[in-house]
């Protein structure tokens, strides 16, 4: 009886030429068209983001975004099943584990002084469709500004669409008696921003911004500028690519002084496939972020699962009821 493995061996031995021909058929298409019509999780934006000298909606925008998307493994195609499909954005959900230092304003923080440092274990689950993120941190005091001796702080901060809440445990508030979900409506914008300033979020949002996205060059580096949208419509993003076309730096600004927490600067480096299951999705191994000039995060990524894992973010009923917008 010819088993699957036996058939495979037979066909591999006798049919490599045929297989090569099949493979060639997948590569037959050519051409240099750079135009594309696309949008991502963010909606149409209204704010102006770029300087006047940059090009508007040019083929260079399309080319740059495609190159950046391919550099991190976001733009991909599949020929499995005999298909000849275009490249699409294949990233939806991912999970990040890391460790490092986070900083928060302490009870005695004064302007100009460094914030309190915490040794931090970091775990983020996120998705772009729908836009959602759950950040779980266990923080212990460390460094010169630490009072010392405090018990570790364990927090779970979650956001989805226009809802933000804090969970006492993963999935709290969805089943009666299973943990507490505390609405945090004031945190929606800040938590959503963390999603869209990740390298993948930047590319998705830049594509979604359409003709508002600009490409320029600063000190020899390619810069992508665009406005965010929805609740973050007042935020302008400036992303700088490195020599490998990976996003090395993301800066956000807003003219609204009440939202200084949306003024951020994040540096990404040490890109690699950090997944236990290889995906060819490259992610930064080192993330350093400032918020309104203060260091807030210095994270080394231990592992990143980009294989679109099962991550869901149902909004607890009490959070829906408490959120009036």
């Amino acid at each position, binding site marked *: 009886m010819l088993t699957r493995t036996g058939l495979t061996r037979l066909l591999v031995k006798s049919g490599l030429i045929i297989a090569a021909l099949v493979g060639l058929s997948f590569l037959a298409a050519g051409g240099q068209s750079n135009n594309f019509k696309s949008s991502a999780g963010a909606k149409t934006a209204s704010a102006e983001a770029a300087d006047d000298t940059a090009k508007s909606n040019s083929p260079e925008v399309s080319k740059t975004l495609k190159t950046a998307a391919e550099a991190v493994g976001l733009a991909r195609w599949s020929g499995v099943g005999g298909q000849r499909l275009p490249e699409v954005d294949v990233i939806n959900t991912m999970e990040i584990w890391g460790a490092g230092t986070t900083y928060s304003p302490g009870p005695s923080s004064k302007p100009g002084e460094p914030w309190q440092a915490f040794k931090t274990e970091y775990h983020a689950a996120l998705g772009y469709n729908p836009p959602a993120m759950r950040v779980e941190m266990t923080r212990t005091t460390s460094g010169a500004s630490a009072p010392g001796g405090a018990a570790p702080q364990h927090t779970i901060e979650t956001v989805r669409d226009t809802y933000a809440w804090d969970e006492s445990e993963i999935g709290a508030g969805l089943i009666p008696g299973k943990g507490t979900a505390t609405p945090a409506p004031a945190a929606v914008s800040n938590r959503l921003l963390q999603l869209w300033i990740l390298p993948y979020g930047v590319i998705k949002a830049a594509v979604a911004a359409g003709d508002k996205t600009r490409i320029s060059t600063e000190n020899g580096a390619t810069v992508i500028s665009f406005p965010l949208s929805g609740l973050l419509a007042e935020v302008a993003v400036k992303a700088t690519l490195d020599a490998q076309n990976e996003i090395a730096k993301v800066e956000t600004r807003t003219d609204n002084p009440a939202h200084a927490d949306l003024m951020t600067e994040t540096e990404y480096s040490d890109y690699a496939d950090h997944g236990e299951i290889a995906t060819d999705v490259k992610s930064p191994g080192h993330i350093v972020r400032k918020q309104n000039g203060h260091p807030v995060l210095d994270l080394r990524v231990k592992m990143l699962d980009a294989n679109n*894992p099962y991550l869901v973010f149902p909004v607890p009923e009490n959070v829906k009821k408490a959120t009036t917008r």
Partner: protein
Amino acid sequence: MTRLFLAGRSIVTAALLCLLPAVIFAQNNGGPRMDHENTLPPTPVGATPIAPDGHPDLTGLWNGLADNLLGVPNQMHNVGIEVGKDTTRDIHSGVQIATWPLQNRQRQNNEQNERAATLLRRMGSNRPIYKPQYWQRVKDFDANSNEEDPSNNCMPAGVPRMGVPSYIAQTPTYLIFIYPGQGGLIATATSYRMIPTDGRKHTDLEELDGTWNGESIGHWEGDTMVIDSIGFNSTSWFDQLGGYFHSENMHVIERLRRDGNTLTWTATVEDPDVLLEPWTTTPRVALLNPDPKAILPEALPCSERDFAHVVTKEHH
């Protein structure tokens, strides 16, 4: 980082080669097309045939999109992502997804191709919402699906994971569904279902031995065939991907509607033991095989021998 995936290349090569007869068949007979440049659902053509009892006649070979033909399911049709020439849409959420045209795509080798396919199959937003205590289990099952997937090792996929039947025969009192085994790409067994439509009631759940396909009973709601199934084992998963396990209390409602030469299938899964809420698959649209002489080819014998050689968790 080098990862050996010894079986992967042979499986991909075998899958590609298994497609060849279908491609030739399509070219010679105007039959199923394999060279998809999009995953858009087919547009219905022609009149819907009516059975003597006045209901639509579902009889036919529903592999016109090459789904299940020679055991190679066209999974991109089934994951809820509608890829067009230069636009892509998540059917469930309606979100537009960035797309770059075929003519300008970068090269990928077989290994990269397989990894991309894995991402594509899992990027849809239509996911069942489990109770929080089961979220990690679902993730673990999916991450370790090479070992954990119950449909591997020649086991049945079960209802509703089997999806759209490749062949339907309709009589006044029964529906016969045939699902050819997937020996070429995923080692599953050939299955059939005999579904009464004579108005009988379900057996008491307590009296049913849990099975892969459960006890199915069909009835018409207008022009839609509704198939209600209970009495499952808790071994199968209920969707193609994702580690979506269920309990013995799973209740499945399938809906099939014929429009001309298309058949639209959905399944709703109710399982209050593990799910927070019922979940419905993204509609799958099958195309009638246009060849009146078409038959289902014999499925390859199912004998799983590859998993002993799989040394990573990469999916295939």
